[in-house]
């Protein structure tokens, strides 16, 4: 009896999948089940076919599987949409009344559940979503109590009648589910774990935004762009409580130049965007490089080129982040692999940006932004907001030449000095210069900082036996997928190495790679950009590559299989 289950809801945009997903994940968590959820959806507001995957388990679940144990199709064509992921074991809870595609009973296991009828009896079709929620709860023998309580809370804003109707819907659904169990059409028992109840359920978007607040972010300027908008929305909602200025700019160019201006005046600013929007920010990135301005850039990747697939995922803007901006200047690129990373790295990004006066990237992607799972509550105890601004004296010079290249950063109005920054090559005071010897000193000064950064990189995380023969390399959002896939292989000769900082590339990299007899890299892009970065900095050429670029992230089984094929 498996204790790891995947439930998929599939239907049109705007059909209420989100509500079902929202209720189910919360109820499961309250009931003490480990939960993971992610979604794939089209670039439209209504119609089409989208799907949400919810995994529940006795242990941690943090990655997407293709396997579907329970499918709830909500519209015509839904089953077909996920066809490839359906197996003979897949239980399809279908409301034959609403969904009339003729299904091939021989190939699939259909169970007719009268969601709509039940709902109508309660008073309105629209309750069918909650009926479905109840049904699932029933299937798992989650106390009706828990479910009802949450449903109540959830609709608390609504009129009493609506609340009651929804409770009834949950109850009826629950009975439907329980019925299925009793008639032993279905049986699961997934152990639950009391601790989960007190854990938090957090998405990549929320983790980045919370990390920003924890980093002291008090200014965000951005232009909406999927999948990066969530961070702006989150901070806008928290603006009042945390004294954040959250401004929607007229374009990405304004967003970037505003953020740099904000840092100049003493704010801690960030931008959030995606590939095309970031392209427009690259002149501003170079400005930050020249002004030696801190700037935190959340770059949420999606498939390109150009508009590409706006609501899908990819890891193909690594080289863009690495080389964007004309001229030569240092930067840091952080690539969170899990929700906790996203929080702590974003928090750290503000400190790094401020200390080194450089651009710091948080590189995520749509899969990462839209995925969430339960995790132990974030530890804020040693959150430390480093402010590296000084009170200036009368003869303050913004670009004082120092041994390590870092000049104390003053801000206007704080102290007796004047703060002069200039996009032209400048002298120590910050004023425009054509002194070509000084030019060389300033270039060296800016590039020196790169040396400092190299000594303070976040090492990659090795998981698996120290005496590994095979090494799987990955970065960013694929962390948990690779982890589970490698675990599935059940071999004692394989480990995996995940990079949460890709640039500057940590010094440990080559040591880890040299130890391996075989190295396989896993990337969500078509040209294996990270392998190129590794080759450039270590000389090591990773020849075995597992690449995916259809707009989706890897499924655990898919990756397991690909790894198996390579290794056997």
């Amino acid at each position: 009896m498996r204790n790891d289950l995947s439930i998929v809801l599939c239907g049109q945009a705007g059909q209420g999948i989100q509500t079902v997903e929202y209720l189910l994940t919360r109820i499961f968590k309250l009931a003490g089940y480990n939960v993971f959820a992610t979604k794939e959806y089209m670039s439209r507001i209504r119609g089409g076919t989208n799907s949400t995957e919810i995994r529940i388990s006795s242990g941690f679940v943090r990655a997407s599987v293709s396997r579907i144990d329970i499918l709830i199709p909500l519209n015509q064509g839904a089953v077909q949409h996920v066809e490839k992921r359906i197996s003979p074991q897949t239980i399809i809870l279908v409301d034959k009344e609403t969904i009339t595609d003729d299904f091939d009973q021989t190939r699939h296991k259909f169970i007719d559940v009268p969601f709509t009828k039940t709902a109508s009896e309660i008073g309105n079709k629209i309750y069918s979503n909650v009926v479905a929620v109840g049904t699932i709860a029933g299937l798992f023998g989650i106390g009706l109590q828990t479910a009802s309580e949450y449903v109540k809370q959830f609709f608390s804003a609504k009129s009493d009648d609506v609340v009651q109707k929804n409770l009834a819907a949950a109850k009826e659904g629950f009975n439907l589910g329980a019925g299925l169990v009793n008639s032993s059409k279905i049986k699961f028992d997934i152990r639950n774990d009391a601790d989960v109840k007190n854990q938090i359920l957090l998405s990549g978007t929320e983790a980045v935004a919370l990390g920003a607040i924890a980093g002291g972010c008090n200014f965000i300027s951005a232009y909406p762009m999927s999948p990066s908008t969530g961070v702006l929305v989150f901070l806008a909602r928290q603006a009042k409580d945390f004294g954040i200025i959250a401004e929607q700019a007229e374009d990405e160019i304004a967003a970037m130049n505003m953020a740099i201006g904000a840092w100049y005046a003493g704010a801690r600013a960030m931008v959030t965007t995606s590939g095309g929007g970031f392209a427009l920010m690259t002149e501003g990135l170079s400005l930050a490089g020249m002004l030696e301005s801190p700037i935190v850039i959340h770059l949420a990747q999606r498939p390109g080129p150009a508009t590409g697939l706006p609501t899908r995922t990819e890891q193909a803007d690594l080289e863009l982040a690495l080389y964007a901006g004309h001229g030569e200047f240092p930067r840091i690129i952080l690539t969170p692999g899990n929700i906790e990373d996203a929080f702590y790295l974003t928090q750290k990004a503000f400190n790094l940006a401020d200390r080194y006066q450089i651009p710091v990237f948080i590189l995520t992607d749509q899969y990462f932004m839209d995925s969430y799972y339960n995790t132990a509550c974030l530890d804020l105890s040693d959150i430390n907001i480093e402010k590296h601004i000084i009170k200036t004296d009368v003869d303050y010079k913004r670009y004082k030449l120092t041994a390590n290249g870092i000049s104390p950063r003053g801000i206007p109005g704080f102290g007796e000095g004047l703060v002069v920054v200039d996009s032209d090559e400048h002298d120590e005071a910050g004023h425009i210069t054509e002194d070509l010897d000084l030019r060389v000193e300033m270039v060296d000064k800016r590039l020196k900082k790169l040396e400092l950064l190299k000594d303070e990189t976040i090492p990659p995380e090795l998981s698996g036996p120290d005496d590994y023969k095979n090494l799987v390399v990955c970065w960013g959002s694929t962390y948990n997928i690779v982890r589970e896939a490698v675990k599935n292989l059940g071999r004692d000769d394989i480990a995996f190495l995940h990079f949460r900082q890709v640039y500057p590339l940590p010094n440990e990299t080559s040591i880890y790679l040299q130890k391996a007899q075989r190295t396989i890299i896993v990337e969500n892009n078509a040209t294996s950009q990270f392998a190129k970065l590794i080759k450039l900095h270590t000389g090591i050429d990773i020849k075995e590559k597992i690449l995916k670029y259809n707009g989706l992230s890897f499924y655990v089984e898919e990756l397991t299989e690909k790894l198996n094929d390579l290794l056997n």
Partner: protein
Amino acid sequence: MDTQIFDMANIDIAWCPGCGNFPILKILKQAVAELGIEPINLVLVSGIGQAAKIPHYFKTNVFNGLHGRALPPATAIKAANPALTVIAESGDGDMYGEGGNHFLHTIRRNPDITNIVHNNMVYGLTKGQASPTSQKGFKTPVQVNGVFLEPFNPLAVAIALDASFVARCFAGDAEQTKEIIKNAIKHKGYALVDIFQPCVSFNKLNTYQWFKENTYYLEDHDPLDRQRAFEKAIQTDELPLGIFYINPEKPSFEENIGTYQEKQTPLYRREPDLQKLCNLVDKFKILI
């Protein structure tokens, strides 16, 4: 206050002898000095161009950013620390060409900054191509048959967007220009000051003489009358100077964002409330 406080010690000014930027530099120093604004409380924000070099000849805080991008950082600087007096200053190409979109939306935002544009109707630093305000027929190395595009009308556009302060003046007239600039700085909200500035090297059409002959000051004009302001703004046979339009009603961007409703403390003096953050994080347990 003595204007010398804004003078830089022995600098080599990169403008051409006779350039209209010199009087503007002088006038601006006088204006801020007369308003008693301390160098440490003033920030000059500029883009790139001849006009945009002005902060390098001005002893104060300076943010000399990218070509066309003076307004976004100026807005942010003011928002991050409203105690600062912020002036965004550049040329016509910078503000109305490359920076056109920021011009539109900064007017809508209405930050309490002064936007001074040195309008010499040409791209000076890049050696004389047409700018958005170049007059029809103006011949340049690129516009070989003369400009045929409709000149950009910054005042009319600003009035169309209900900008809160719209004025135009002429670098050749120190007194009036100084007064207009002082009014613009004192005005709460976005203030546009478009200054006719002769470029002696590349604009042989719109000379000091030309501006003298083709401009006049608005008289008994009511700056609260938007309709009339527009009428004046689109006049082209002769070009009016003065304060065209004022909308005294508008709250500024800094007021609207609410960040300073409770306390005036600038952002750099604030610390995030980690306790609040803990509570926020905890919400992700209860999940409503």
